């Protein structure tokens, strides 16, 4: 008998239930399977009604974020072998409304993403025909880490502040704002500061640090937020002392 493992999955069918329930499936264990392979096995062979998001299965699209044994993870990059002998518990991400089974609603994040103005803001744009804006490898290095975010939302699911105060803009959005602030081609720091220094912006963050811990791409959103706090505080002091000299 090939080895098997128990997979306990959250189910939620709003047309029949008012609360999520749990369902356990016995699935074959394979050394190179990831949790996503197990979920697909369930969907293909045991229960076609299990709904979950997935796409690239290589950890770059960000669709398959779910909680595995209580920790937010990308199920396409989480191996069954790390959880043997099981049982393995798969739940939808925390702090987002659950639409169905393992699918959560992300419209809150999509709105916040737009709010932080994640695009290059310049007073004067060059025409493409005039060539590229020069940027040295060191300049690229200053923001590169923050540009690696795949929008998987694991950080939101790990942030207790977001759970307690859903109006908090959140780690990924602020990290993305910082990515543009630090881009040498961008001139929109002041505009973004106006939005992010509000109550639900960077000052809601109390540096719990869980977001950085769960980030699968090592973006370090906690670091981005603290750096932002430091620069925005120093900018404010500068504007007090030298009101005419600020950029």
């Amino acid at each position, binding site marked *: 008998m090939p080895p098997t493992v128990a997979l306990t999955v959250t189910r939620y069918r709003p047309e029949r239930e008012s609360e999520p329930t749990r369902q356990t499936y016995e699935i074959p264990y394979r050394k190179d399977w990831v949790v996503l392979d197990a979920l697909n096995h369930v969907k*293909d062979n045991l229960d076609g*009604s299990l709904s979950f*998001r997935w796409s690239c299965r290589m950890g770059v699209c960000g669709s398959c974020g779910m909680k595995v044994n209580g920790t937010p993870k990308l199920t396409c990059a989480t191996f069954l072998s790390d959880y043997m002998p099981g049982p393995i518990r798969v739940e939808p991400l925390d702090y987002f409304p659950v639409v*169905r089974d393992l699918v959560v609603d992300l419209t809150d994040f999509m709105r916040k993403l737009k709010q932080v103005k*994640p*695009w290059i803001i310049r007073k004067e744009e060059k025409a493409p*025909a005039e060539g590229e804006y020069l940027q040295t*490898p060191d300049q690229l290095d200053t923001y590169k880490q923050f*540009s690696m975010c795949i*929008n998987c939302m694991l950080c939101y699911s790990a942030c207790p502040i977001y759970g307690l105060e859903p109006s908090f803009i959140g780690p990924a959005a602020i990290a993305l704002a910082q990515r543009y602030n630090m881009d040498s081609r961008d001139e929109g720091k002041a505009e973004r500061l106006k939005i992010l220094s509000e109550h639900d912006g960077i000052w809601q963050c109390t540096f719990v640090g869980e977001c950085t811990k769960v980030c699968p791409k090592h973006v370090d959103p906690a670091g981005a937020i603290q750096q932002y706090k430091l620069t925005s505080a120093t900018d404010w002091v500068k504007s007090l002392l030298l009101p005419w000299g600020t950029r």
Partner: protein
Amino acid sequence: MDLCTCDVLVVGGGGAGLRAAIAVAETHPKLRVAVISKVYPMRSHTVSAEGGAAAAIKAEDSLDAHAYDTISGGDWLSDQDAVEAFVREAPEEMLRLEHWGCPWTREPDGHIAVRPFGGMKIERTWFAADKTGFHLLHTLFQTTLKYDAIQRYDEWFVTKLLVEDGRCQGVVAIELTTGNIQAITAKALILCTGGCGKVFPFTTNANIKNGDGMALAYRAGAPLKDMEFVQYHPTGLPFTGILITEAARSEGGWLLNKDGYRYLQDYDLGKPTPKPVLRSMELGPRDRLSQCFVKEQEKGRTLEGPYGHYVHLDIRHLGEKLIDTKLPFVRELCLKYVGIDPVKEMIPVRPVVHYMMGGIHTDIHGATPLPGLYAAGEAACVSINGANRLGSNSLTEILVFGARAGQAAAGFAAEQPGASPALAAQAQDEYRRLEESFLRKSGGKERIATLRADMHQIMEESAGIYRTELVLKEAAGKLKRLQERFQDLSLDDNSYTFNTELTAALELSYMLDVGQSIIQSALERRESRGSHQRADYPQRDDERFLAHSLAYRAADGAPRIEYGPVTITRWPPGKRVYGR
């Protein structure tokens, strides 16, 4: 705002779709443009592209050189007027992306760096480490947020194109979160739904690449062009099929057989050198490299593992520093999915399905023969890639033709009247079909997974790297039977809320249509050209087959193949020479 109508509707939120939407918003700011996608745009498969995007910018490079490399790479099946437009507009499009914030890797002096790539004589591939597609897509997506005119329908699944008065006037789509089935009318439609790699079992492609747009256009009467040309990427990981970028070879990686021998030198691809030479050995075109693998396998010189045959990709000699700077994602993927560190060990690789050169037939402005219907990106076939695509041309293609299709569709839409009232009846019919065939159906004994596995087996056997007449003929019959079995499908899930079994069933139906067009086109092209290799017709036949195959849907649903001319301007057909 009225949710259900717009002026230009872009189906698909990947690189081509988002670029097209921006093009509409910039050239015709008064038009309402909407992007409808079955996933959030940043999940589109553009995100997985790794290697780079080609545009001629170096002083010693020229547009003609880029054009010649592309045309010869495509084995002269590329439409040369389209290629000329493509290479001409490529540098500006790429610079525009840079201005929008794309973090291209730079030279120490701050200028954009380029790297060599397969099939190209001169270095012209721009790159962002080895996550070019990811950075490109996120830059494009974040830039679209700037335009309030661009409305998005995220996680809406399109099931049918609405055609009335001889033009395409919109779609019927399911809002996945609520199950609400709705018609969205538009004055022009741009299909940017990507390729169809999931028709095959081993592919680098994501789960969402099911040829949706291709099947939708095919069913609406537009022809699919050159569907027999399926690109096998020479270096994919066994089992998962995850892509190991061509950049690993362009930085100097070697392909070794089981004896540690660089076997490509036996196949007229040049002589092995310590540093990579362009258009030679491991930097040859993808179709030739994949074919060499099959030949090595026949000679018994490949290694065998639990997931089939493979060879080794050796990048150890590149050193840890270079790998961490230029190939960090490759290292990450190998560590994670194979459990090996490419700095110290060789990577097991094999050819996997990667790209579809064929697609919806369009002209150089992205217009299909059906008025109001446009297409761009991998879903379309202009054709610039001909019989084989060169690496790094695709990311540039989505920008250039996404912009062209956007502009053309906007120009068309600006002159159209509003939606025809007969559309409501069509939409109602579609709603009934979805209810009766899937959601409210009783009985049926076929399961999606079984049908899909059968389809995969048929496609793998018959439309592999080498094809033969008899196997293709049998495959056509088998696929027809699969289509019939599909009518007997039963679903476990009949809910309206985020029903992914329903979407999987619809995607399977798209894939069956696309699979049939691939098999039929491959059957009737009795020659070998580029990535379509016939074991029974091993030579290229320019007299009979220097033409595009066009697959039309006949009344019984099977494909009917016609042929259309290839546009030749300045490069008459010649021999494809690599390594010399």
